[in-house]
Structure formats: structure tokens, C-alpha cells
């Protein structure tokens, strides 16, 4: 920031106030765990910031009979606490519980995890993909609902004029699992992430994070597993199909090269299916 320039910091108490600040160019500040590292990456902190933590509606989780609504400012730690034991969300809980470390999880938010544009290893992205989550945005024109895949693909453009407010999940899963491969037990980003879920129609959903720049569904594997029902939930068979239908282009990064990220997917699928079979919904 140029000398003599005073930073603008708005702690919005309403969404309208946040949008007004956003219209004037303020960057959205959630937990701060991504943005505060910008100076370490050679970047600068924004000159104008709008914080969302004082907007009560964004810090709530509603659990209803057929759906769940998660406020964008809910932290990973709170998400774990409130969804622990809720059938079908084992994978989402594991994603929030395994991300980073306890101190970060107390601060980092759901919205922040999905809106960190250059963060390929966000744990919640593949977990929400298999939930087929809907992202609620507040745009300058009004509220907007978008499927998680479309949101992740278009978020660079979308977030220039919108704030993520809530995530909507249907309760149509009977089981889910989340498998991540960090190089150490903790303290680094996972090389690859595989999220899996089985819905009430016994269809398997699979998503992959950290391998490509943006998390996505593994539709080729989902289709292959759907084609042979007997093999669908056999860990070894699923791993073979994963090898056969691996259509990922691994990204090179500090933690691992692209070929390695791609290579580990098959064993992660095997572990994921094994984890699914241990959940209450499928055991």
C-alpha cells in the first residue's frame, strides 16, 4: 500500500452493507487465513476490505429433514461440530476435520475455502461436489443460485460482482467419504483428494481435488462404476476402473509433480471405497 494511504476496513453487519462496500471495490475478508498470506507470496493486501464475520445469518448452519444450509462464514471447526453424526455427511465432516490444522480450522471459513481462487487443494470443494451442493450468491442484481460445479468453473468471473452467502445441500446421501494424501501427516497441502458419496438411488458420486487447478467430478469413473453394479463398491475393482478411466491432467506444484498426483488417484479410490463400506449407511 502506498505510504500515506489509509486502508478502508468495513466490518459489515448486513449483507447490503457488505455489497455496498464490494461495489466500491472492497475485497471480501472471511477468516483471513488465505488473504493474510498474500504478502508472503509477493502480493499486497487489498487497499479496501469488507469483513463478513459480523453478519449473523452467514454464521449459521440449519439442519432440516431434507436439506442443510451452511452460512459462508461458518468455520471448518463449527462445521465439524454441527454435522458430526449426521448420516450422509461423513465425507464433508472428514474434509473439514482434515484440512490444515486445528488453529486454522477455528478461523478458516467455508466461503473462504471455496472462494480462494488459486487454491487448488481446498478440501471442501470436492466434498461439496459429491454433495451436489448449490451455492447461493448475493450479486449486485440480487440473489443467485448456482450448482457447485458451475460455481467452481466460473468463480473468477462471478466473484467480481457477488458474495457467496450460503451453501445448500440436499440430504440425499446415504454415505460419503473423503480421502486426502498429504506428504506429511499434517502441515502441507494434499497431493490429491478424492471425495466419494453414495446417494439414495445407490449411485456413486466421485470428485477429485488438488490434482487439477480446479476440483471436478470424475464422471468417467462414475459412469464406469454405474455400468457394473456388482463391481461398484468393491475397493479393488473400483481402483482398477480408476486406473482405466483416469482422465486427469495433473498440475505441477511444489508438493508434487503432475504425473504423481494423477498416479495416486487409483489407490485413493480404493481407500475411499473401503471407507465408504465402513460407514453406517452401507455397513
Amino acid at each position: 500500500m502506498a505510504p500515506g494511504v489509509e486502508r478502508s476496513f468495513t466490518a459489515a453487519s448486513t449483507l447490503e452493507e457488505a455489497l455496498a462496500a464490494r461495489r466500491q471495490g472492497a475485497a471480501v475478508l472471511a477468516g483471513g487465513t488465505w488473504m493474510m498470506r498474500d504478502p508472503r507470496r509477493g502480493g499486497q493486501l487489498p487497499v479496501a476490505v469488507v469483513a463478513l464475520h459480523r453478519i449473523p445469518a452467514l454464521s449459521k448452519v440449519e439442519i432440516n429433514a431434507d436439506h442443510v444450509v451452511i452460512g459462508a462464514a461458518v468455520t471448518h471447526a463449527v462445521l465439524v461440530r454441527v454435522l458430526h453424526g449426521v448420516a450422509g455427511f461423513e465425507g464433508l465432516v472428514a474434509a473439514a476435520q482434515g484440512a490444515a490444522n486445528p488453529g486454522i480450522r477455528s478461523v478458516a471459513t467455508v466461503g473462504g475455502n471455496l472462494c480462494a481462487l488459486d487454491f487448488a487443494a481446498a478440501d471442501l470443494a470436492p466434498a461439496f461436489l459429491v454433495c451436489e451442493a448449490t451455492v447461493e450468491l448475493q450479486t449486485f442484481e440480487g440473489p443467485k443460485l448456482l450448482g457447485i460445479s458451475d460455481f467452481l468453473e466460473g468463480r473468477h468471473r462471478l466473484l467480481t460482482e457477488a458474495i457467496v452467502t450460503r451453501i445448500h445441500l440436499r440430504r440425499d446421501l446415504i454415505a460419503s467419504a473423503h480421502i486426502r494424501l498429504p506428504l506429511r501427516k499434517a502441515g502441507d497441502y494434499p497431493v490429491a483428494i478424492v471425495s466419494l458419496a453414495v446417494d439414495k438411488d445407490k449411485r456413486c458420486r466421485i470428485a477429485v481435488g488438488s490434482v487439477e487447478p480446479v476440483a471436478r467430478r470424475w464422471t468417467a469413473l462414475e459412469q464406469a462404476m454405474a455400468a457394473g453394479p456388482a463391481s461398484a463398491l468393491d475397493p479393488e475393482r473400483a481402483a482398477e476402473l480408476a486406473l482405466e478411466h483416469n482422465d486427469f491432467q495433473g498440475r505441477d506444484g511444489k508438493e508434487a509433480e503432475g504425473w504423481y498426483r494423477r498416479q495416486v488417484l487409483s489407490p485413493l479410490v480404493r481407500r475411499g471405497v473401503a471407507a465408504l463400506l465402513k460407514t453406517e449407511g452401507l455397513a
Partner: protein
Amino acid sequence: MTVTFQLNGEDCRFHGDPMTPLVDILRQERFLTGTKAVCREGFCGACTVHVDDEAMPSCLKPVGLVQGCAVTTIEGLSSGNQALHPLQAAFEADDAVQCGMCFPGMVMSLSAFVRDNPHASRAEIKAAMVGNICRCTGYERIVDAVAVCLDQARKAGQLVEGINV
């Protein structure tokens, strides 16, 4: 911008850039140098403090977000004239402290953990420490001391949170 918050039980007022990391204010303005600024990326845990009783890295906390909050640093856990926090006492008794660089953060992370998890297993203690790096690699003795602290509290029929913090 002016930010006011409670720091170790006393009113604290900061005037300046609201995006200043809390750790810099603690160390440079309040001279509370027990909180260490090491990685500044939330990986090492040396800067851990409590904000409204939650353990979190102060390097990634812009001071603007602590407006109206209660911040506790390692200096606020026990003044030195009082009895140590039971976890600090257990670390001392077990001779778990080595160079001391990671220790304030280790105590702040684990004091919140033992308060919330009085029946934690050894595996759970280890999982709670993943965000605190000890370059002396003295992890096992730290885990031993935490286990002893919890065990003593259970035998005394007292939760750790009932003793201090």
C-alpha cells in the same frame, strides 16, 4: 482505524492499519514477546493465542477482526506470581521444554484442547498438535506431559478448564 479489544484481561486500544497481523501488535506494541512470529503462514503454531477462548494463529489474524474480542497470550495464562496453568506445570514437571521457541504456541494450542477434551486419548493429543511444529522434535515428551496433565485432572475429579484459563 481504532480497534479496541481485551488483552489478557485489560483494555487494549490499537490505532493503525486494521490488516496488521495481531502477532505484530502483541510483540512490537505490547512487548508480549512470548508469542513468536515464525512462519507467518499458519503452519508452525508458534504464534498461537486465544481469541474468545479459541486457539488460533495470530499471524493470520488481522487486528480489525478482533474488535471487541478477548485475546489471551501466553503471558495471560499465568502471570508468574500465580500458580502455573496445570499444563504448564505438567510440562515443567516432565521436563518437556527444550529450546522453548515452540512452547508458548504449544501451551496455547494444547490448553484449549485439554479444556475441551478432558478424556482425550494419546492419538487425539497427537492430532491436536499437528499445527505446532517443534524443531527440537520433542513431541513424545510433550504428549506424555499432556497425558499426565489430563490424568491428574481426572484423578482429582476436576476438569482442566475448572482450574485455570
